[in-house]
């Protein structure tokens, strides 16, 4: 079907929304509560557009296209409405950006800058309620003062991870996100995966270590999770040569999701104080390991294995590969066993 967006004639697919059609055509419409395929409740109203023949502005995220629609995505009326939305959201969004871990990576901040909304003209009613921050969980924290009730976390937990550990609750006239990170976190359904935090557009629901870096201080390195064989794609977040975080990337087997091990257990070990950083040779007399040079350790290894091979044959030697390591490593390990140990006594931990 044919529609018109900002004066351009566009071929739109039956059943698609205004937002999907616009994005496909490279026309940016701001969204906050919208999360593709997960949340299109249209509650934030930031994505409103002007529709010919309609008195009211309509949300682009959940309004389906119709033949002949004429849409304006950035008219003065639309921009004024978006400024009002941001103004109202800010009135319930407390705390300053400088102390927020999402500073520079916050969608609310981004749109406020884009629409020139630096302060709010209104006084929010929630502040008096003094909703408490929930941050007893080892990895995750929820700060209601920064929450815009977009429900992206709620829908991610219920529809994407399928866990349903975060709820939309009510306290009097206020909606409140019931996040399972309070003192009773051990008795909740939460699996600590943190996909909720990755879905949060503001600094309300965060991974606690997010405090250690700002978006502009880091680089991201795309890699594959080192734990199970799902093969989740993720970005290691690197600041000053140290890994400070891991975030889910859109891979074919994980679609942006991670579990607790991938998000929170995949990098602390890398530069852990417990890493072995130098070759070690055991002193036979004391039974203690002593630091050695590579030359000493490799010479000893090669000479002892050669000695055994010469005396007892290659079949007296064996070498096991690690199924946590890379293909290239494993290929070379089995090549080593076959070419110089002189046996086929090579295996990996697939059996155990």
């Amino acid at each position: 079907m044919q529609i018109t967006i900002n004066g351009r004639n566009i071929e739109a697919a039956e059943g698609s929304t205004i937002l999907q059609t616009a994005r496909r055509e490279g026309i940016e419409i701001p969204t906050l509560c919208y999360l593709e395929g997960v949340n299109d409740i249209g509650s934030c109203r930031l994505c409103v557009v002007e529709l010919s023949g309609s008195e009211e502005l309509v949300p682009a995220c959940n309004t389906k296209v119709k033949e002949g629609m004429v849409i304006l995505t950035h008219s003065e009326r639309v921009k004024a409405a978006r400024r009002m939305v941001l103004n109202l959201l800010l009135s319930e969004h407390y705390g300053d950006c400088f102390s927020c871990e999402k500073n520079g990576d916050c969608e609310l901040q981004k749109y406020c800058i884009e629409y020139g909304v630096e302060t709010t003209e209104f006084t929010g009613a929630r502040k008096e309620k003094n909703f408490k921050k929930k941050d007893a969980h080892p990895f995750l924290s929820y700060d209601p003062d920064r929450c815009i009730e977009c429900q992206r976390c709620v829908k991610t937990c219920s529809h994407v991870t399928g866990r349903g550990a975060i709820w939309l609750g009510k306290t009097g006239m206020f909606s409140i996100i019931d996040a399972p990170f309070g003192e009773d976190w051990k008795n909740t359904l939460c699996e600590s995966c943190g996909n909720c935090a990755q879905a949060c557009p503001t600094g309300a629901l965060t991974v606690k270590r997010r405090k250690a870096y700002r978006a502009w201080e880091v680089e991201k390195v795309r890699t594959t999770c080192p734990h199970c064989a799902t093969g989740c794609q993720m970005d290691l977040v690197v600041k000053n040569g140290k890994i400070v975080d891991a975030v889910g990337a859109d891979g074919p087997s994980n679609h942006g999701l991670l579990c607790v091990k991938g998000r929170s257990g995949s990098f602390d070990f890398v530069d852990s104080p417990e890493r072995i950083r130098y070759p070690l040779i055991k002193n036979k007399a004391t039974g203690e390991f002593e630091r050695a040079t590579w030359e000493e350790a490799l010479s000893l290894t090669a000479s002892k294995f050669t000695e055994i091979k010469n005396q007892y044959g290659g079949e007296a030697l064996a070498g096991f590969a690690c199924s946590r390591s890379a293909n290239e490593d494993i290929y070379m390990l089995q090549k080593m066993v076959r070419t110089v140990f002189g046996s086929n006594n090579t295996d990996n931990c697939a059996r155990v």
Partner: protein
Amino acid sequence: MTNTIYDITHESDAILMVGTNPECAHPVIGMQIRQAVARGAKLIVVDPRDIDLAKQADIHLKLRPGTNVAFANGMMHIFIEEGLTDEKFISERTENYEAMKEAVREYTPEKVGEICGIDPDKLREAARLYASADRAPVMYCLGVTEHHTGTEGVMSLSNMALMVGKIGRPGCGVNPIRGQNNVQGACDMGASPNQFPGYQNISKEGIVEKFEKAWGVALNHKEGTKATDCFPKMINKEIRGLFIFGEDPVRTDPNTHHVIKALESLDFFVVDELFMTETAKLADVILPGISYAEKEGTFTNTERRVQRIRKAVAIAGEAKPDTWIFTEIMNRMGYPQPHLTPAEIMDEIALVTPSYGGISHGRLDSEEVGGRGLQWPCPAADHPGTPIMHVGKFARGIGYFRPAQYVPSTELPDEEYPLTMMTGRILYHYNACAMTDKTAGINEIAGESFIELNTLDAKSLGIEDGEKIAVSSRRGSIQTTAHVSEKTRAGECWMPFHYIEGGANWLTNDALDGISSTPEYKVCAVKVEKL
């Protein structure tokens, strides 16, 4: 896996899970199974425990551990009895069906119900649900393989899928949800005593010669010893020198006392490691390697998808790339192996491994692949990879029914050791914990070993939930904390194997599968006592 994670979770009408707990062991697959249930896919869970997904299942067959072959034979008996078989598929694409029919004749639902400890009518329901769904995958994991008849268990699931024609199509297949990040790749790369890279059998004519030519050196033509069979050979001095790259068998192999004795019997023992593991402590030399975040390379996931890992950081000290270590040893032992980059090594892999023939780092990083990896078989640089196997034709040509008979587990409970113990993974740790236990928050959530006991057993022993208790088998004794619930059946208990303190493998049985030499981790007899 014959299929992809996406198609079995997004394009299936029913899912049959046998001995797999993906919510803990493969959580992101678990999340996608929950999505599948939410969109209306039916779920059958075959597992001795009330795993969380069992609560969402249409049918949960809470069978006795070690009875998978009987279960599968019972399913097939019902397919035949109720006319649920796919005769067209059987006649066009399979062989040995008559022998299969004969083999399952005696496995009536009533008999199987008795062996497995399940309701025969629920087995009938499961058979009907799986067979009559248009698209239904079988997913399985270590609950099937870690038995002395594990290989027969796998073949039985394959027989089942063949009989109802659920293979070679989206949303179907026989899908092992493999364990470690690169266990698929480790097998693909030929770290195997009887196979060179790409499952090229040593016993097949011309294969050893092929590698002798590629590597320019004479090779041993005799099949090697499987890792689990190496340990007894260390004790009797047939194996005297061992190089372990990154494994921690002291923690992860069964019968810990026996493993330690074997490693201590070696004349010379070298470990390439990141950490001072329980195994590394026994070494003569430790060579410090580097982790996935410090190197370039590839992992192959459970759906045969080869994906990149990339260097993010370097750490202080003298740790070296593992391929550098192996190359140095090769040179010092007389084989002139040049130092190659990981990309160059992958080029060599592609040359000698037909299924990886079209895979290179350059291609994996290209726009064409778009960060989606390549699924083998990928025989040529212009081949798009193979998401679903056995479409139209099986890898071996015709699908073969391989009948198997139920044989009870090696060590059954008796008067002295009256409980059957299973082992498995929890959500928060991975295997030997060498990586996950470096994260303080993970240890705060799941820092200690425990045992799941059935309420009736706990009551008869006067044990309370949370009580510290002793657990013993013929091989060892440990102390751990009792978690009392209905999760396991009466007479059965379960322990995670991650921990060394109060670790399950001090107790487990090193009886091995007759074909794969995989240990029977899932069944051993134990006794539980108050302290």
